[in-house]
């Protein structure tokens, strides 16, 4: 009996020694929809990693408050009080930029989930432990332009752009305009105040322009008023194309959403094995399916980190970083591997424009319609508005 105990204890001790324990800081705006989705994804991924038994991931979650004044002390706490060596975070570009100073000071392995602005790319250009998973803003522009080229080939010639006058809507507007004009489009752009709910004046003005595409860049609150008032004023574009960071909850159930198109990095209906697996696991853990692509993004980060830690066989951040740089894995977005960014400023860029897909609200759900190799349904063009 005594011998059995000794063997058991030795086995357990051996197992615990073989297991790599990682203490990972998670710094996200958990009061926002995207931040909460990202956190859910990270937690789900960590659970999967822990279930494998080779790596044990302990998450220390801190709210970055979506503001530099909260995020900077929060990161400092993660590094000096919680003593983590690895941080998953950086959703909003402005906040992530503010974190660049403390990150360089404390030197964690920083796995960046969002922060698409190339200003952030510049800020982290000299930091070797920066892994950026999300595509950069120029990738986003490239993906959207590819779709617009397709529409041009199908007869669209005039684009009316409605953009909210904040950083989100205004950031790439000049680039979009120039690029669309280069493709042969005639463009008219009008700013609006997000959340105002009143678009009839602008839309009526646009009637004289007779746009083929009404392209709006704003927030979820603007989606329904634009859909409704476009019909009210009789604008009749061939396509309404929206680019909010998140679509309103339940928008697909409203008949006004029908035929409206948009861009996302992922949908639950994406038909690849990893996506289906993610949807199943997510539904099992949270009792629902999410449309937020930040959820699978968080999941992918946790899984890739687990895989790198397993390969490194150590919790040392540099050994993990070296293995992460070599990671090649299938994800709900498609294959993931790290390469230098297109501008060459950062060394480890995960996804690029290839993860973006165009969808259309069709009969009460979002269906991938472009690029053709990922389309579940043909694009309805012209749409019926």
């Amino acid at each position, binding site marked *: 009996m005594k011998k059995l105990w000794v063997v058991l204890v030795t086995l357990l001790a051996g197992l615990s020694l073989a297991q790599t324990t990682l203490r990972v800081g998670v710094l996200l705006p*958990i*009061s926002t929809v995207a931040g*909460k989705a990202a956190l859910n994804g990270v937690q789900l991924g960590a659970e999967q990693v822990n279930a494998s038994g080779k790596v044990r991931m302990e998450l220390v*979650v*801190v*709210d970055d*408050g979506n*503001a*530099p*004044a*909260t995020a*900077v*002390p*929060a990161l*400092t*706490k993660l*590094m*000096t*009080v919680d*003593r983590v060596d690895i941080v998953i975070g950086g959703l909003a*570009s*402005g906040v992530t*930029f*503010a974190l*660049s*100073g403390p990150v360089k000071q404390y030197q964690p392995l920083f796995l960046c989930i969002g922060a698409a*602005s190339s*200003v952030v790319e*510049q*800020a982290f250009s000299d930091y070797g432990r920066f892994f950026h998973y999300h595509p950069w803003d120029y990738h986003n522009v490239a993906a959207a332009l590819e779709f617009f080229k397709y529409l041009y080939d199908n007869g669209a010639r005039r684009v009316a752009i409605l953009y909210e*006058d*904040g*950083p*989100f*809507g*205004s*950031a790439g507007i000049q680039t979009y305009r120039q690029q669309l004009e280069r493709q042969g489009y005639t463009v008219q752009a009008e700013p609006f105040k997000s959340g105002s709910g009143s678009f009839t004046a602008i839309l009526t003005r646009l009637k004289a322009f007779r746009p083929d595409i009404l392209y709006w860049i704003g927030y979820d609150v603007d989606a329904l008023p634009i859909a409704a008032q476009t019909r009210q004023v009789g604008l009749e574009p061939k396509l309404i194309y929206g680019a909010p960071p998140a679509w309103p909850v339940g928008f697909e159930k409203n008949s006004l959403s029908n035929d409206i198109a948009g861009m996302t990095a992922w949908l639950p209906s994406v038909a690849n094995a990893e996506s289906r697996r993610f949807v199943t696991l997510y539904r099992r853990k949270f009792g629902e399916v999410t449309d937020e692509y930040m959820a699978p993004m968080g999941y992918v980060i946790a899984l890739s980190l687990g895989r790198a830690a397993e390969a490194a066989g150590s919790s040392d951040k540099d050994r993990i970083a070296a293995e992460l740089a070599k990671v090649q894995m299938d994800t709900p977005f498609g294959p993931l591997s790290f390469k230098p960014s297109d501008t060459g400023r950062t060394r480890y860029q995960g996804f690029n424009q290839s993860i973006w897909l165009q969808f259309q609200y069709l009969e009460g759900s979002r269906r991938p319609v472009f690029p053709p190799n990922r389309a579940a349904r043909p694009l309805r063009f012209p749409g019926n508005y």
Partner: protein
Amino acid sequence: MIAAAILLLALLLPSLPLGEWRAFLLDTAQFAFLTSALALAWDLLARSGQLSLAHGAFFGLGAYAAALSAPALGTLPALLAGGLVAALASFLLGLATLRLHGMYFAIATLAFSEVMRTLVLKAQFTGGSIGLPVQPAFSGAFPLGSYYLAVAVLALSAGVSLLLSRGRWHYAMAATRQGEAVARVLGVPVVRVKLLTFGLSAFLGGLVGGVYAMKTLFLSPYDAFGLGRAVEALVVPIFGGLYTTSGPLLGGLIIVGLETWLRLRIGEGYLVIYGLVLILAILFLPRGLVGLFRKGVGRA
């Protein structure tokens, strides 16, 4: 006494044995000092009876002016430039609006904030909507540089607040607040009092913005000119105690401390508790926190 104790503690904080919490506490304290300093600046103007919603704009103007001029001028002159730009803006705004009272003045200052934000958003040299990277204080040569700058701005704001809590200027502001017509009859140069107070208050707000920029190293129009900042600037003195020095000083530290503590302890949903505490404080402490310590209204 409270003000002196807080300032002494702020000076000594980096040398206290805070263990592993040191860096976090210094970061949190720094933002709390800036919140208190902006609240002190707002309270100065409130003493002359003006309810300003422009302090977010003064903060933003100071932040952008300091950030843009720092590479050429260096840290301290850039901060001074930030304060002066904010003061100049307040002077121009004051000339146009100081004849307005109460809510009308508040709405005018709110409109001013929106105009400033939009201008910065549209201008090319400010980085527009993409934002503006900022160089650290003293080019990063002193790790505690921005901390001591925050302490200095807090000390300056508290000093000005104390100075204006005494003597003729204090009575002139109080008389203006309580009734401009009567104040004029008493010989108070009402317009001059209001303009100078506005300028001084905006100058301090601009300084706070400059130090904030050099700590966060990045500015965006929505962060720097946010209405939330203007609201915070008025909530803190109401919570701590209006028309006092200790009130905004203590209020800022407690509000930032409470928010940070709740965020760490509760996580999601902490804002519910935070809001509840503020509502209760405003309901049951009409004289603010300092009302607990003293029965009379007035200076601290």
